[in-house]
């Protein structure tokens, strides 16, 4: 029994190393001087540290612009998806009406929409709307990608708040909107944060549409900018890793905030057979 337990723990640590190594390697590479990176020496642990790579990445033409573009399209899309999704979620969760089941199903199916396979019609549509090479096109698409997920997940969170709380508030003299505004919405806070983090990461990561619709270099988002790092950085791996680290940072911070909610949100309802 004992040696088995030890073996399991050793295996767990080795697997942990496998998963953590790329992050470690990204950070240490970003902190190494260029001369160490382009040497044949073997340095799992850096010999000397520098922050020059970060300032190189930060000052590369296009980085700040791409960062701004990414922030704009992601935040705009998530904000819109959150508001529109919440309205739908409240209706689907709190109200009884004809056709409700159909709408629930619509959200569910829309969530599975194969966006990658809709590249061509999206391209043609944005061309017709004269939105090619314009950031609102991406914001609009990311809104559509994240909306069904937001509506569906928020519906789950609203379901989790007992209706009795709202009714109690209404007995105490709140109107329906007052009850929602003062009771349900504050309780929904954590759910809203978790949902928006997921939606944000989806938009932050998106590559195919950003690559296809934004051919103008000044409209590049961070993923597309980073994918061209060889034109941006050449063999400057330190700079490329520093840029990757800066790209990762916001996501990591968000993930740590909502870490506990993550699994439940995606597989809600999947647990029962």
């Amino acid at each position, binding site marked *: 029994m004992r040696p088995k337990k030890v073996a399991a723990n050793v295996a767990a640590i080795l697997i942990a*190393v496998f998963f953590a190594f790329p992050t470690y390697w990204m950070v240490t590479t970003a902190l190494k001087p260029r001369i160490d990176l382009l040497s044949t020496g073997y340095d799992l642990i850096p010999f000397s540290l520098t922050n020059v790579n970060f300032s190189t990445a930060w000052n590369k033409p296009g980085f700040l612009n791409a960062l701004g573009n990414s922030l704009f399209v992601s935040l705009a899309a998530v904000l819109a998806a959150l508001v529109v999704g919440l309205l739908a979620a409240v209706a689907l969760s709190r109200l009884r009406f004809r056709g409700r089941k159909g*709408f629930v199903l619509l959200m569910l199916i829309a969530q599975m929409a*194969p966006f990658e396979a809709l590249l061509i019609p999206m*391209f043609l549509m944005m061309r017709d709307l004269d939105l090619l090479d314009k950031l609102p096109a991406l914001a609009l698409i990311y809104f*559509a990608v994240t909306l069904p997920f937001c*509506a569906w997940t928020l519906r789950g969170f609203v379901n989790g708040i007992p209706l009795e709380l709202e009714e109690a508030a209404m007995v105490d003299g709140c109107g329906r909107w007052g009850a929602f505004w003062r009771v349900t919405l504050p309780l929904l806070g954590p759910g809203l944060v978790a949902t928006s983090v997921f939606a944000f990461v989806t938009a932050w990561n998106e590559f*195919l549409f950003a690559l296809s619709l934004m051919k103008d270099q000044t409209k590049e988002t961070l*993923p597309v900018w980073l994918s061209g790092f060889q034109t941006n950085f050449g063999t400057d791996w330190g700079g490329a890793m520093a840029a990757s680290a800066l790209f990762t940072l916001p996501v990591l911070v968000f993930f740590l905030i909502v870490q506990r909610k993550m*699994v439940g949100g995606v597989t809600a309802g999947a647990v029962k057979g």
Partner: protein
Amino acid sequence: MTAVNTTDSAVPARRSSSAPRRAAPDGARRRRGSAFDRLLPYLLLAPAVISILWLIGWPVLSVLVTSFRKLNLKELTRGEVVWVGFDNYAQILGDSTFWTIALRTVLFTAFVVVASVLAGLLIALLMRRVGTAARIALQVAMLLAWAMPLLAATTVYQWMFDQQYGILNKTLVKLGFDSFAGHSWFTTGTSTLGVIGLLIVWQAVPFLAFSLYAGAIGIPKDQYEAAGIDGASAWQTFRAVTWPELKPLLLMVTFLSMLWDFKVFAQIWAFKRGGPDGGSTTLPVYQYLEGISKSHFGVAAAISVVMVALLALLTVAYLRRLVRSQEGEL
């Protein structure tokens, strides 16, 4: 904060004075409200439903329609509508390149899905067995992998697999495999896809492991104790206790993985643009090359329709399970 305090003290005082005064407007509002109430759910749903129909429903229709048109740059700029029936389909289905790419996509997806689901399951079960420190180390490590944006991870992998200065080749040489000095991992499509596959598995496993771990800790402990008393071996315990409890969840995450991994584009494109010599091109990459690079929108739409059809098969199977599992909640 103050709202809670005022309700306690204010309600009894208000009840006597305001009730009669409120009766009339309340009644009026209910009559007016009933029509409003009936419309309210649809008003709340309208923005979402209109957005979905416009930005998802219409493109789905449009991709079908476009796949029956000849639509290259010439037709697009002139605004011509040329119907060609099934010509686009005939063109792609008659092309052996398409079949190579389709087969490659299916095999690649299957490989990545099997590898990542198996690894996720093993890690989930491992997390139950190990001590707290090892478990937290695993969870933190997987969280780091999960949080890294696709393109950041792709760039890091490119660096690790770099021909001259990559840490992998350096390590292999250090271990005595001298032939790996200056070895390029991207000379053939298969080895390129192998590296990309490893990257995708690495990215996919954290979600799978966390989901399956959440499912696994839900299995009652006494079932394992009973199995232990009956003298069941580890494998028998897995077959009799873990497997039946975890199977529905496992099926769900397998379906999701198939849907996700089939559509992978960013990593493949960022590594070698589908190269070398088209050797790592999958259907999503093919669609991009035909549609966006060459402006053959009609042909690309036909490729998209084939993709949608394949994905739809998987999606229907997945949704049927999901709806069945949620029957009570719908």
